[in-house]
């Protein structure tokens, strides 16, 4: 059977074919996901209400989705900036935690006077960049696998966070492992639309800057060539090691900034849960957006919507939170399968005469 299937690489697929494939993949993924949700016990009649109205069309739902999307955009930038240089950043959560920790440090120790809020954000970006510096240098200089180092350094960051929350950063007012709530001057301003805060504007600005640099500036050129073929980039005169280091550090800074935006914008204190699922979310969004910065906010918006919907599905229908991971997996796998179909033509020959 298998020997009758032939694969032919297509000579290249135009923008129309890619767009159609993309749309078809999302359609199929949605259909499969709906099936999974119905199987998990969500009444068919409630699907539209829960997945569309409550997430994107109602004011409260839209506000929650946008709030949820804010750190996701930054985490996805962290994944995409590194992935473009073929550096697998599996430690977004760790960088995010270090960013959150440094921002909290600035807040709790009242550093910076009137410039405290900007200082918190800068500190968070620095924290993320510092936390990715070691894996970056180990990889660039000594070819140590970044997958292992970023992954394990996340554990270190998490244990450090626990140490702080159960120790010096712990709130003396009660016994939960969280920091005290920030002062008002340490909170990102909100727009009066649910919890949506300045972090969204910061994240979108970061997207625009990354897009501008990637597609319109000399450094972006260097990064695109160094990522695709470092040997050739070197022969063309690019300092590939430097380009790689800078891109990865900026990626780490984006993850750190996500941490800063969560503590200063949403949580208003440091908790154990600030980085939850952010590595996976960041990578999946970057993959769905094909590492294109301008697509990241759009994909983040939908992935955030899914996360918001899953919370109410859990409350009202007792559906496990794991369902959201299953659905994300379905979307990613469907897309990858469809991308395969745009790259190759599959033909199945007729059965042989016996």
């Amino acid at each position: 059977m298998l020997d009758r299937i032939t694969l032919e690489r297509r000579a290249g697929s135009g923008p129309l074919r890619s767009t159609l494939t993309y749309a078809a993949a999302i359609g199929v993924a949605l259909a499969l996901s709906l099936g999974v949700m119905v199987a998990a016990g969500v009444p068919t009649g409630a699907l539209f209400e829960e997945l569309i109205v409550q997430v994107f069309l109602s004011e409260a739902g839209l506000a929650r989705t946008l709030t949820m999307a804010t750190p996701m955009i930054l985490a996805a930038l962290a994944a995409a900036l590194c992935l473009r240089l073929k550096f697998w950043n599996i430690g977004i959560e760790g960088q995010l935690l270090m960013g959150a920790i440094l921002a909290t440090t600035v807040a709790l120790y009242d550093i910076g006077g009137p410039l405290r809020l900007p200082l918190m954000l800068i500190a968070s970006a620095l924290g993320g960049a510092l936390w990715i510096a070691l894996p970056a240098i180990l990889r660039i200089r000594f070819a140590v696998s970044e997958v292992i180092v970023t992954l394990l350094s996340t554990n270190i960051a998490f244990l450090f966070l626990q140490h702080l929350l159960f120790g010096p950063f712990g709130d003396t007012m009660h016994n939960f492992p969280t920091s005290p709530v920030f002062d008002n001057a340490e909170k990102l301003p909100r727009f009066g639309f649910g919890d949506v805060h300045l972090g969204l504007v910061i994240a979108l600005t970061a997207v625009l800057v990354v897009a501008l640099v990637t597609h319109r500036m000399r450094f972006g050129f260097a990064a695109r060539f160094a990522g695709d073929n470092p040997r050739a980039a070197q022969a063309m005169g690019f300092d590939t090691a430097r380009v790689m280091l800078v891109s990865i550090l900026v990626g780490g800074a984006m993850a750190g900034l996500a941490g800063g935006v969560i503590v200063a914008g949403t949580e208003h204190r440091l908790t154990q849960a600030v980085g939850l699922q952010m590595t996976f979310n960041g990578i999946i969004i970057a993959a769905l957006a094909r590492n294109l910065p301008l697509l990241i906010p759009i994909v983040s918006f939908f992935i955030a919507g899914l996360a918001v919907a899953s919370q109410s599905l859990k409350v009202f229908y007792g559906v496990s939170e794991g369902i959201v991971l299953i659905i994300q997996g379905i979307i990613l796998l469907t897309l990858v399968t469809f991308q395969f179909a745009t790259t190759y033509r599959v033909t199945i020959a007729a059965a042989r005469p016996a």
Partner: protein
Amino acid sequence: MPTNHLAAPDGAAFALEVTGVSKSFGEARVLDSVDFDLRWGEVHALLGENGAGKSTLMNILTGIYAADAGQIHLNGAPVPVRSPADAMALGIGMVHQHFKLILPFTVRENLRLAAGSTGDDWTAIDAKISEVLEKTGLDVSLDVPVGTLSVAERQRTEILKVLLLGARILILDEPTAVLTDHEAERLLALMRDLVGSGHAVVFITHKLREVMAVGDRVSTLRKGRMVLRGKAVADVTSADLSIAMIGAEQAAVDARPARPLTQPILEIENLSVLSGRIKAVKDANLTIHAGEILGLAGVGGNGQRELAEAVMGLTPATGRIRLHGDPIEQATVAERRALGLRYIPADRASDALSPDNSVADNLAVTAVRTGKLGQRLVAPRRILSHARKLIAVFDIAGVTAGGRRPIRLLSGGNAQKSVLARELDTESRLIIAHSPTRGLDVAACRYVHDQLIEATDRGCGVLLISEDLEEILALSDHIHVISRGSLSTTPDARPAREDIGELMLGHA
């Protein structure tokens, strides 16, 4: 049973006959109603430029591609070839340009692995191997890891492999491209031996001389059509074949007239390069003057790549390198490029191009890096117009959407032209061209040569590193020979052909 096809009955005129085969990839019609035939006991040479459809036709015969239309007959009977396994069962075997061998395994282990699917045990396979070796007189050491063998020996292993699997029809895809002159002679002799014992060989090549030397009949593809079908080699001249292949009279390359040497551009003194623990380049000395092409002949892997990369600043080296009299040993690649050094590497896919980036970006990348297309912001339209100019001047074909599509979609010849277009800019002063015509068809070769000569007319110096002696002899003002990292010390002469051969083998 497939073995029925292998008998060569006197009744059947042709071992293999292809009629009306067409194949399109997307909108591109790669083969247009092609006819081709092959007799038992003949070497049938298949000529054609890059992209003429030779590989596609052979991939259809070996079941890798399915034809859109047309028929394949074996010994006069129609046969389906739907997969490489089908082709093998019918006795059609192909030796590809890129070998499919497992390097740490010995030759015997590779052969056992390949023959394992027939269900025979190792003793039976080993007996078969001995039988094939005896019949063909192939010279292969069986119990040596493939990784330690030379390219020619690996190629013989591949040939042995397809014979072992029962191939009576052998398709050799540009087999001499990777061989030295001497090795190529041996391969041609082997091809005669094989057809002498009743096999049939399809010999794909670019080299007219080899067609004349070994072919019984010759066919020529041009742009997907069979323009010359099964002519006896004795009845055609190389001029006929040239014209069939490229569609116009092709003048032979004349040796360049010698020019007076003026100003030295590149001076290398006692240059040594370590590659691992071995000295890949040993105390090399050479000087290239303005307007001079210095040919560096030698068998591949004798330190050519290391020398080129050391001059470019891509690999650390000891010794002195001066450009326009200034020492550049400590300079970065970017600084050397700013002084006019340019590099056309031997392996363009891995060392010169970024396959997933667009044609336009690949053409413009060095201009973008140096800020010529904008200091801060680089407007896409400036990149596209820069690329458009180069595409026109260098006649790069196959570019779609104004150069916005990935450069990996271009054919080998056009990809090489893109590298040239980028590297031979007006500020180039010294060009290192390493095998700049490898794998190119006659017309593209000539184009590359013309461009290099034109660069010298502007006063550029060229270091031409090539394994193709004809190319070196035709273009070079002076010739050095490199052997095991050492340069011959006859810089001011053009040694005779035989002398170069001796030097290449390290005899002198």
